[in-house]
């Protein structure tokens, strides 16, 4: 959390006008100390109080020992992007203590484990020492559980100071421990002990308060990887091959978790979804491509380094026309990068994945709800165009909790694309050709293994091939085939989700963004509007770009393309696709591993507008 200097946006200690439901609480702990449960509990309780909330885990690539920060943003206006200010800091980690003291805003609250003996030089903050060890000892927590439960002490102290409903905290614990009463009782007991201690020791503060609202009714909280896994299962996905990688692992793990619940064959009770952990990403994509070729809805989930490894098979799938869905839960790169930090840096890599002339369909979910929706829709697109379809999520979506509308059941039947079975071939008298453009959309018909018609089989290859799938090195055959693939890609513009466009009367400026930066963009637009600057907004949801994208850009003299990467990759893609509109496009991009903030967007925008 020490990445930005703290700037006070809070009331001065003297005025004591309470800030209600509009601040950030950051907990600094040691990685692996079990603080995630405590932080989720606070966040969920606030959510249950009807107050919009979000959580961002800024954690190290480490199992145990390095500093980690969890920021809970409480926002009555519903802004869930990262903020750079920390009004309340809970310091549990001696190693980051000095920095944590500096990071709290002037007038803020500083809670700390009183076993940390470092000096606190600041006089402009309220400090609350918490006797964590004593409370745990007095509560008679069994010694083997002391480390895990000691973080519950600050939950109670925070609840007292901010006015968080204890009943809602209890509900959050019941959810977390899945109704296991012993664990609930123990943890809630410690929370309550922390609360009681705070009540006895600290005078009430009136600077930051959480108060009941009704803004979260009907919403759920979940993470993007869970949403993606569920969306995949509702697509009817039949095979998921994967290799562990942060931050994508929990996607496939969640698929595995829900297969028994969601994918029992209603006729036989047997399983209809195969999950296979392979030896590496080369094999994961190989298995998925094999299954896609065999007529299964097949997927893999990975992150940037995995995409690098998968390039060759993805190129083969593009060229041999095999449907497959590839989730890239992006982390910062190049190279190993920072595995636990977020980015939107794989866009170009995915859009042109593999050597030679390739163009890939890329879906860009802009919320965890869209992670679910794109999760099933991607298969309809992949099977329709017989080509890989990427879905770009990122660590911020994938591993953080987000409020969202409940998931909506797919509103269209599965589209299995142009697939011919025995009966179809009978009707055609066996007269078909695998790579022939019969319908004028560039998309040929296919058969899959297991088809017993004597004319069903064809030989698939990554080498030059004719319409009949026979080997060819003829220049005109190659060119015609590649031109057809291009045509297919052009056709995909009508299939992919169109952009979401928001217009404001009188706006001359267009904002363009995608993915997890949406919340920061919305907040920046709100702030700019308060200053009299109206903006229109286009949230892109896919590449190739549907026609509306060009229309939006043309209707604004200045369009700012906002994204979380160094090189302005979406700006590049738009410039390539719409070269005549380049002068209307300005890139606002940066990347340091942390989620986008409204403040960065506003500053970058204002610098450009000067």
């Amino acid at each position: 959390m020490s990445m930005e200097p703290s700037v006070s946006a809070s009331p001065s200690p003297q005025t004591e006008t309470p800030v209600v439901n509009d601040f950030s609480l950051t907990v600094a702990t040691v990685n692996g100390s079990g603080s995630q449960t405590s932080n989720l509990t606070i966040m969920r309780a606030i959510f249950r109080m009807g107050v919009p909330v979000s959580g961002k885990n800024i954690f190290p690539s480490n199992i145990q020992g390095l500093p980690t920060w969890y920021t809970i943003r409480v926002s009555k206006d519903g802004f869930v992007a990262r903020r750079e200010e920390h009004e309340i800091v809970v310091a549990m980690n001696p190693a980051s203590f000095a920095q944590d003291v500096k990071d709290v805003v002037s007038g803020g609250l500083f809670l700390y484990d009183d076993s940390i003996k470092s000096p606190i030089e600041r006089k402009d903050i309220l400090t609350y020492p918490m006797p964590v060890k004593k409370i745990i000892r007095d509560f008679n927590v069994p010694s083997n559980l002391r480390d895990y439960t000691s973080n519950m002490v600050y939950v109670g102290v925070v609840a007292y100071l901010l006015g968080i409903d204890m009943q809602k905290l209890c509900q959050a614990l019941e959810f977390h421990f899945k109704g296991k009463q012993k664990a609930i009782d123990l943890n809630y007991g410690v929370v309550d002990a922390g609360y009681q201690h705070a009540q006895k020791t600290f005078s009430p503060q009136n600077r930051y308060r959480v108060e009941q609202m009704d803004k979260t009714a009907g919403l759920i909280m979940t993470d993007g990887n869970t949403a993606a896994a569920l969306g995949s299962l509702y697509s009817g996905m039949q095979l998921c091959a994967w290799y562990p990688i942060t931050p994508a692992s929990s996607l496939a793990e969640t698929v595995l978790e829900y297969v028994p619940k969601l994918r029992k064959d209603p006729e036989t009770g047997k399983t209809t979804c195969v999950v296979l952990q392979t030896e590496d990403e080369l094999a994961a994509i190989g298995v998925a491509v094999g299954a896609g070729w065999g007529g299964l809805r097949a997927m893999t989930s990975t992150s940037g380094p995995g995409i690098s490894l998968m390039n060759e098979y993805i190129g083969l799938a593009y060229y041999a026309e095999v449907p497959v869905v590839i989730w890239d839960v992006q982390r910062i790169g190049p190279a190993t990068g920072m595995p636990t930090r977020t980015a939107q840096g794989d866009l170009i890599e995915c859009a042109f994945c593999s050597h030679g002339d390739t163009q890939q369909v890329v879906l860009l979910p802009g919320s965890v709800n869209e992670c679910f929706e794109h999760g099933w829709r991607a298969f309809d697109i992949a099977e329709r165009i017989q080509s890989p379809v990427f879905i770009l999520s990122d660590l911020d979506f994938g591993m953080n909790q987000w409020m969202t509308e409940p998931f909506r059941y797919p509103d269209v039947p599965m589209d299995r694309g142009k697939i011919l079975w025995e009966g179809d071939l009978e009707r055609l008298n066996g007269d078909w050709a695998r790579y022939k453009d019969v319908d004028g959309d560039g998309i040929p018909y296919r058969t899959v293994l297991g088809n017993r018609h004597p004319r069903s089989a064809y030989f698939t290859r990554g080498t030059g091939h004719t319409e009949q799938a026979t080997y060819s090195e003829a220049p005109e055959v190659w060119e015609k085939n590649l031109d057809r693939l291009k045509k297919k890609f052009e056709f995909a513009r009508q299939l992919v989700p169109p952009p979401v466009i928001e217009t404001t009367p009188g706006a001359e400026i267009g904002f363009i963004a995608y993915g997890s930066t949406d919340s920061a963009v919305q907040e920046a637009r709100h702030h700019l509007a308060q200053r009299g600057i109206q903006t229109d907004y286009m949230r892109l949801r896919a590449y190739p770009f549907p026609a509306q994208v060009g229309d939006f850009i043309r209707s604004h003299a200045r369009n700012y393309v906002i994204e979380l990467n160094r090189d302005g990759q979406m700006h590049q893609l738009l410039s390539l696709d719409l070269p005549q509109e380049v002068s209307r496009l300005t890139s606002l991009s940066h990347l340091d591993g942390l989620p986008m903030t409204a403040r960065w967007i506003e500053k970058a925008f204002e610098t450009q507008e000067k």
Partner: protein
Amino acid sequence: MSQQIPVEPRAQVNLVGFNKNDYRGLPSTLCQGCGHNSIASQIIAACYELNIVPENVVKFSGIGCSSKSPTYFLSRSFGFNGLHGRMPSLATGALFADHTVKGMGISGDGDTASIGFGQFKHMVRRNVPMVYIVENNGVYGLTKGQFSATAEVGLSLKHQGVNPYMPVDIAWEALVGNATFVARSFAGDPKQVKELIKAAFSHRGIAVLDIISPCVTFNNQETALHSYAWGKEHEVTIHDVAYVPPAEEITVEYEEGEDKDVTLHDGSHIILKKIGHDHDPTNKTAALRILEESNNCNCLLTGLLYVAPKEPSLIDLYDLPDTALNRLPESRLRPAPETMQQINSMMF
């Protein structure tokens, strides 16, 4: 260089009504005399004799001379010529699509023992149900004569000098990788190749056939371990292999105590008539021992080294419906609408 894979011209049909032409492929574009062509002929013969319906086989290959050969047989079977060294993963995924289809992979020593070593080992370890033939010639043919990882130490090749490295033994790697069927054969011994292919097709699990298949263009010097001449001179067959289909009477002369009879997954038998060794092919330790001994005594040991007919294959480990997965309709794949509410209620 185009040549037809030789097959008998007779229009005789097998039990499922096919003649041998129904198992043929396109003319081979490999060199005259290539061991791979001989193997292709034996695949055609074995499938014909096994009464396999061509549509019930799916072929896979990687990259290299060997990997081109699936177009030279079984034109009526689906096939996928995948990536160099990465065919095992492709096949693993595809075989889940329809568990009633028999898988057959054709690879080479470069494809299996170098670039694809990892995928080979993991395919073996997972017991992917397929026949996996390595056409092993110790040399890279398509890129014109570089050493492969199975080339013997001291082998001298034009433009390449002398190979300083120890070779990879594919049969050995398969055995230590827990393969459930491992055989070695020699393209110059077509009868044995054919019987082993038949047995491999009857095995439920990975069946690795490491077939020494000489490269007449780049590595057929008399002293080379992958040449016809050396193979003919040094081949030691463990046993005569005779395949007996399921439900057929065993008419092979069989000596109790001397010969071995192994019942395979589909009820077929392999009768192993003792020649030199008294080898029990269900004993892995013995298989490793005779393999090591044969390598030490400079001979090409051929025959069925090891078989474990009762191990579950990868696909058996999943509780899949009897209907092929790729034929399941939407009603059996997409969860029912009422589950959506339950799922949402499981979120916080």
